[in-house]
């Protein structure tokens, strides 16, 4: 039994600019996580990958989001306060706060992207650099494809230096650094107190 080519019909409708609600056939395949009941139509199962995307999304890829932007979005929805958002969003928020994105700001990110323009990397590579915040050359080689051809080792070091300047270290490292500073201050106080007496 053959199903009509839904994807082609939709394309024609688009081109003619006569999209009415009745001609737009849309198949939603929502697959739940866990024991949720799901509604699947036969067509969704049998169509090719690209067609299934065209059928229930207008645009599958409308832009990449850095972890920082996703984090700020969740914050604005109230994930840090814990109410007004679902438990799932809270889980994502808790995860993102511990990544390097947890200590980044919009302005810092913009500075990073401006400074990184000269290295001529792809969007995906900028995204990964801001999400992972590489601190060693090995990590840069992982992120940048064909790194040996595109960036010399001097440029890689320069890139790492720029990252160090523009992007703050991840929250855990910041906490460790602060804890170390406090310990040093306490030690200095003890010594002063001891010598003062």
């Amino acid at each position, binding site marked *: 039994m053959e199903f009509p080519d839904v994807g082609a019909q939709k394309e024609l409708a688009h081109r003619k600019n006569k999209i009415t609600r009745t001609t737009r056939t849309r198949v939603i395949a929502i697959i739940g996580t866990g024991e949720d009941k799901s509604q699947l139509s036969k067509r969704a*199962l049998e169509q090719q990958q690209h067609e299934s*995307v065209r059928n229930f999304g207008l645009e599958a890829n409308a832009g*990449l*989001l850095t972890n920082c932007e996703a984090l700020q979005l969740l914050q604005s929805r109230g994930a840090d306060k814990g109410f007004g958002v679902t438990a799932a969003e809270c889980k994502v928020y808790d*995860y993102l706060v511990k990544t390097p994105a947890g200590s980044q700001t919009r302005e810092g990110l913009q500075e990073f992207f401006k400074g990184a323009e000269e290295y001529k990397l792809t969007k995906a590579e900028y995204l990964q650099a801001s999400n*992972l915040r590489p601190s060693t050359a090995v990590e840069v080689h992982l992120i940048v494809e064909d790194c040996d051809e595109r960036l010399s080792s001097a440029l890689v070091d320069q890139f790492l230096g720029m990252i160090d300047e523009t992007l703050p270290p991840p929250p855990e490292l910041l906490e460790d650094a602060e804890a170390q500073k406090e310990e040093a201050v306490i030690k200095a106080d003890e010594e002063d107190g001891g010598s003062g007496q």
Partner: protein
Amino acid sequence: MFVLTVLQDTLRIPPHNLSLPLQDALTRQICSLYFDKVLKDLGLCVTLYDIKAVEGGFVFPGDGAPRFTVDFRLVMFRPFVGEVLIAKLKTCDKSGLYLSLGSFFDDIHIPEHLLQQPSTFDEDEKLWVWNYNGTPMYMDLDEDVRFRVVQVKYPPIPIEQEKNAKPFAPMQITGDVNADGLGLVAWWS
């Protein structure tokens, strides 16, 4: 890791939500329908980015609720092939490692042929060990692992499942740990 996807859907606002401002009512409906659900080939829906357009609001005969045609953007968790991510090692067995991203995504599998070579499975400790130039490097549980995404699969829902089978994972990520810089983060810092 996160991608924006534009979707269009006909949302039915149940009458008890009609006292809310329209945007809030639509957000609630989108929340119950889409959040924390996997959409085939689009990924795991995390949250709503914004509502672009709303049309309609017609009440059909026999139904007390208005239906709106809404264009909205969702934030989807959908790593691209080749992306490098850091996840925690949850369990491991002979077939490979099982990682989880925070607690919101659990189905990351590193098959044994994509581990750092040469790696062996230690039966006594039930852990994978990487033999790096003679030194055994253990992959302990609960460690951060850096891996690269090889494939994102959306298996079809099984019609029948055994009683003790693992709960069905609608989105499965396969990764590899087979390059310089990949593996336990502690190895390379």
